[in-house]
């Protein structure tokens, strides 16, 4: 599995190919549409991260010492960013997830979506991804 940092570099390179925000958003919407569907048994209220406007569901399980995340949202642009976050964080070791940051979101021009003032639940989602990693790291020790 690729390291988190190199996946982030890959994403930054991909986004550098776009000339303007329209193309970036069109790509994100495509990513959102192709996000693997979360198992319906995990798409429950307990797994909802309430973010005012769009709902975000996130679930994680540990397989072979790696955290596998699945997630969903009712808004497509939010789903697109979820797809990027999962590409970076899913299938990684808990300790690597805990050390990683999300500055790549800033570098690809989508900073506003992870801003605390943006009522879309994504920032809380990042916290929740890390919380799962903390829990599974404790389990591994």
């Amino acid at each position, binding site marked *: 599995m690729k390291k988190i940092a190199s996946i982030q570099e890959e994403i930054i390179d991909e986004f550098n190919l776009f000339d303007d*925000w*329209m193309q970036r*958003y*069109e790509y994100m*919407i495509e990513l959102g549409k192709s996000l693997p569907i979360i198992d319906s048994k995990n798409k429950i209220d307990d797994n909802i991260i309430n973010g*005012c*406007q*769009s*709902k975000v569901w996130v679930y994680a399980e540990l397989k072979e010492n790696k955290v596998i995340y699945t997630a969903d949202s*009712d*808004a*497509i*642009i*939010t789903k697109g960013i979820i797809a990027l976050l999962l590409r970076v964080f899913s299938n990684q070791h808990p300790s690597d997830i805990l050390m990683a940051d999300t500055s790549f979101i800033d570098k690809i021009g989508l900073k506003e979506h992870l801003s605390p003032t943006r*009522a*879309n639940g994504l920032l809380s989602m990042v916290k929740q991804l890390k919380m799962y990693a903390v829990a599974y790291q404790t389990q591994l020790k």
Partner: protein
Amino acid sequence: MIDIKKIRNDFPILNRKINGNQLIYFDNAATSQTPKVVVDEIANYYYNYNSNIHRGVHKLSQEATDAYEKSRKILQNNFNAKYDHEVIFTSGSTHGINLVASGYANILKKGDEIILSTMEHHSNIVPWQMLCEKTGAKLRVAPMDTNGVLIMEEYSKICNKKTKLVVISHVSNALGTINPIESILSIAHSNNAVVLIDGAQAAPHIKIDVQDLDIDFYVVSGHKLMGPTGVGILYGKERLLNLLPPYQGGGEMIDQVTFEKTTYAGLPHKFEAGTPNIAGGIALGKAVEYINEIGYETIAKYEDSLLKYATSELLKIEGLKIYGESKNKTAVISFNIKSIHPYDLGTILDKLGIAVRTGHHCAQPIMDFFEIPGTIRASFSFYNTKQEIDFMVESIKRAKAMLV
């Protein structure tokens, strides 16, 4: 007639660029923009006579007191209150509602009832729920139909001798519906109930005469009325305001203080503890003068033409549904496009420089009623234009092509 060029020049913020596009501000139901004369009034206060009111003997304090009290008179005249002391300065509508709700904790008893409507803003729901928790009074909800219009027959049914308070928004913030407050006042008063009207959305668009309509309480927010944030008014009939205990203790609101007993000041000071938002209060008077210079009728006519134009243009977009189809509306359009989340559409419109509100608009019961997560709300003011509406409609089509 509106001189649109001249009016737009009064609002420097309208020249802003957002992501390289000209700002189109369609979030007026959340906060209206502030004309230069109002901003200048605030600056003038701080540059020339900033000081505390009602207590200094010095020149600045007297000037500030005069300006503040002059503003109260402007507001009195605007709403045609009988006395200027019936106009209480607040921080906004929410403050006004809480002040009255808190006062009624001493008046209501178990078994009493409060009626509100399905289309209230959270700020006209939660304070009454808190009042019910304190007193054991019961909340009753008057329903609306699928057009977002109150069902008046139901009002008559639920309003009875147990009803002590009827609270209603004059205009719904999420739907734009103008509610028939005359009928509601009449039903409530025939049952000896007191009526509080949330005028936050109405005051910028409709001339209100509290005496003519026999209104008991009316609350207004300055920042929706071309004024600054953090200031508003509560109008209350003298008799009713006198029945309410003080809301907060502090300076200004007292007559005599000893450690044994404090006696309170009369109206309006009883409800104005502490140093108020002096600059805001003064500027609010200026804002109301500004609106009256243009004229409520002129404003209403122009905004109604924007509403009708935008409604017909938006409805040409396939799959677009408008929530709130009362014949009697202010210039607010709440809508969704089939299968598109309001957040997604709002995000794309923002990228194009268009400020609309998305979400539940602090009126979740309305969204539950229509079984939707939220809407996109475009709300117009007299400085907006049909060209701006055209650009929004084109932008929605562009966003739709991306999102579907």
